[in-house]
């Protein structure tokens, strides 16, 4: 591929301009995605969710945004980046695309009715300047907004270069040369419409070209309609280009866009004569003269897109299923809640159980991330193999991106839990329910904190796992063992059945954590005294012992809430007996005094 590109650059200047345009365009997509990621679980997500949670809403969103921006391509690429950032789901995205197809027809009305032409590409430079200034700001939201602005700027700049590169090809298009009648003419002109839109990167530009050719009587009315159909299909190329670097959902959306426009185009081509009659009738009703072809073209554009929506709407679910089958996700998808959506926040038991189940899901996902972070194989919790042995054998570093897993899986899910708890508390819920939901939410917070701790611990762990210093390696293995032991103890408490199922055995784990931490610290002091490790490593180890302790406590605190008894009264009673950090320290102090005596 590199050789081909190099050859292309050597022989053609236009090729260089076009490929540079594609590269800038794709860079714009990356920047846009990066920017929208900042707003995940924030205000933008809330606004988007509220305005796209129902099909009619997402379609209206598509119509309105395309009408305002006057570019269905821009709306579709932005929707793709929304999807890639996890701000939208696929069905809502498709709804927006359906709406955008209808919204784009307002362009035909504006051009035909008022001769108005909105040229967004002139905004590319100011957008880039403002965007990059914002990217250098420290505030996360400003930085995010900067990436979005710069992204849109790069998209326009990329499109501009692509257009420039294709200009020479575009100049060679003389529509009058191809004038034909009947179905062959319709097909040829539809093909020309596709080609012209791909080349000019704008269905609006094609539309202007059609209207000019129609006014100059270079082409017949029938051929003009076929061109409009083709242009509608050709416009999807921008979305396809935009989906190249997008997530699986982004690619699915681009394919949905293509399918919708091809199906709509096929319907329009096959029923072009019937549609012409319908356009004639509607135009008559609207008072558009029989010779006013430009406005009739606008009617036609709206009509066949509307027809496409009517045909495709009932097939939406099937389309989503098909797309999910055809394009399989191989990257980390944004985690969505499984239990919260179905439960009513106002029914006490349902709300509590849904929140608990969802937080257990969060815990399980986090446990996986933690085990990966410690570079230990995932089945360690189910196996009976001694932890010491498992850790000793686990010498290869598992290079999972904890940050990405944290952002896409855990943070998104925890955000949904918090949102649900707040909404439930705002309803009819009172007293005990509020208290219980809050306790579960706090358990979720402990889970998140544990993962954050592992993120910190991993830095030194991966560094020292491959170190020649066997003493340090051994110390880090002990920390790994400690966390896995706690995870296994929680699993045992979780799987306990009958009357023994309670949170209280986890208090023993709390005591073990404190005793082990004390043991680690004493061991470290000894190593420093004997000069077996240098001070720098000792400082790192000291911090990591503290991280290890916090991770273990967070996990146990979460486990105590999540795997407690089912009965609310029993749960409350058990919690009032469960030991806290101070109680554990008291036990240890008492033991120390006893030993001294």
């Amino acid at each position: 591929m590199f050789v081909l590109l190099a050859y292309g650059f050597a022989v053609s200047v236009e090729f260089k301009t076009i490929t540079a345009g594609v590269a800038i365009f794709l860079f714009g997509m990356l920047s846009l995605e990066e920017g929208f990621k900042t707003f995940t679980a924030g205000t933008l997500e809330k606004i988007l969710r509220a305005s796209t949670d129902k099909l009619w809403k997402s379609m209206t969103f598509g119509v309105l945004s395309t009408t305002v921006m006057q570019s269905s391509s821009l709306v579709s690429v932005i929707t793709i980046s929304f999807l890639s950032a996890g701000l939208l789901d696929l069905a809502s995205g498709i709804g927006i695309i359906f709406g955008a197809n209808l919204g784009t027809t307002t362009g035909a009305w504006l051009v035909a009715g008022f001769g108005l032409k909105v040229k967004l590409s002139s905004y590319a430079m100011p957008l880039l300047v403002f965007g990059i200034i914002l990217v250098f700001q420290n505030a996360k939201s400003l930085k995010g907004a900067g990436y979005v602005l710069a992204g849109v700027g790069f998209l326009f700049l990329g499109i501009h270069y692509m257009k420039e590169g294709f200009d020479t090809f575009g100049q060679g298009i003389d529509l009058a040369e191809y004038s034909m009648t009947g179905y062959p003419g319709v097909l040829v002109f539809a093909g020309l419409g596709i080609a012209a839109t791909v080349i000019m990167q704008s269905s609006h530009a094609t539309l202007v070209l059609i209207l000019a050719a129609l006014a100059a009587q270079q082409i017949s009315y029938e051929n003009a309609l076929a061109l409009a159909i083709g242009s509608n299909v050709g416009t999807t190329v921008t979305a396809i280009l935009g989906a190249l670097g997008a997530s699986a959902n982004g690619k699915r959306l681009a394919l949905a866009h293509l399918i919708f426009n091809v199906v709509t185009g096929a319907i329009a081509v096959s029923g072009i004569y019937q549609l012409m009659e319908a356009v004639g009738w509607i135009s008559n009703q609207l008072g558009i003269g029989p010779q006013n072809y430009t406005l009739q073209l606008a009617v036609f554009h709206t009509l066949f897109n509307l027809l496409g929506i009517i045909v495709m709407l009932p097939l939406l679910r099937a389309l989503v299923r098909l797309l999910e089958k055809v394009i399989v996700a191989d990257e980390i998808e944004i985690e969505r809640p499984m239990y919260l959506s179905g439960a009513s926040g106002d029914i006490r038991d349902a709300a509590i159980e849904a929140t608990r189940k969802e937080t257990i899901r969060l815990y399980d996902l986090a446990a996986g991330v933690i085990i990966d972070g410690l570079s230990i194989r995932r089945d360690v919790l189910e196996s009976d193999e001694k932890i010491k042995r498992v850790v000793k054998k686990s010498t290869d570093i598992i290079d999972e991106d904890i940050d990405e897993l944290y952002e896409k899986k855990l943070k998104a899910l925890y955000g949904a839990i918090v949102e649900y708890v707040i909404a439930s508390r705002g309803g009819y819920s009172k007293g005990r329910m509020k208290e219980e939901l809050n306790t579960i939410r706090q358990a979720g917070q402990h889970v998140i904190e544990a993962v954050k701790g592992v993120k910190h611990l991993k830095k030194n762990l991966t560094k020292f796992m491959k170190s020649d210093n066997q003493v340090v390696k051994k110390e880090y293995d002990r920390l790994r063992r400690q966390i896995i032991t706690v995870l296994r103890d929680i699993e045992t408490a979780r799987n306990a059945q009958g009357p023994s199922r309670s949170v209280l055995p986890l208090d023993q784990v709390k005591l073990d954590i404190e005793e082990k931490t004390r043991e680690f610290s004493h061991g470290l002091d000894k190593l420093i005294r004997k000069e077996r490790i240098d001070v720098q490593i000792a400082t790192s180890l000291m911090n990591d012992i503290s991280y290890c302790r916090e991770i273990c406590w967070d996990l146990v605190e979460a486990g105590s809430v999540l795997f407690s008894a089912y009965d609310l009264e029993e749960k409350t009673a058990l919690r009032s007996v469960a030991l806290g950090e101070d109680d554990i320290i008291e036990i240890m102090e008492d033991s120390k005094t006893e030993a001294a005596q």
Partner: protein
Amino acid sequence: MNYQKLLNKLKDILSAKRQAQLEKYSSLKKVLKSLRAEQKKMEMELAGDIDDETRREITSKLKVISKQRKKGLKVLQELKKERDDER
């Protein structure tokens, strides 16, 4: 059962708050009872012929249980006081 006791019983049944307190009280009592049983079982095991490692483990568990019970009894007393104050 004298008149006052009967009246208290009736109050307990009729008041939702008291009912909740009562449920809390009896649940805690149940938990404490099972903890006591577990403690006794461990004390018996400790009195038997066991190796040092097991002895250490049981002693540690006993310390935890005794602390849990201590904490629970304190809460139970508070609940009882709260109930008596309202009567």
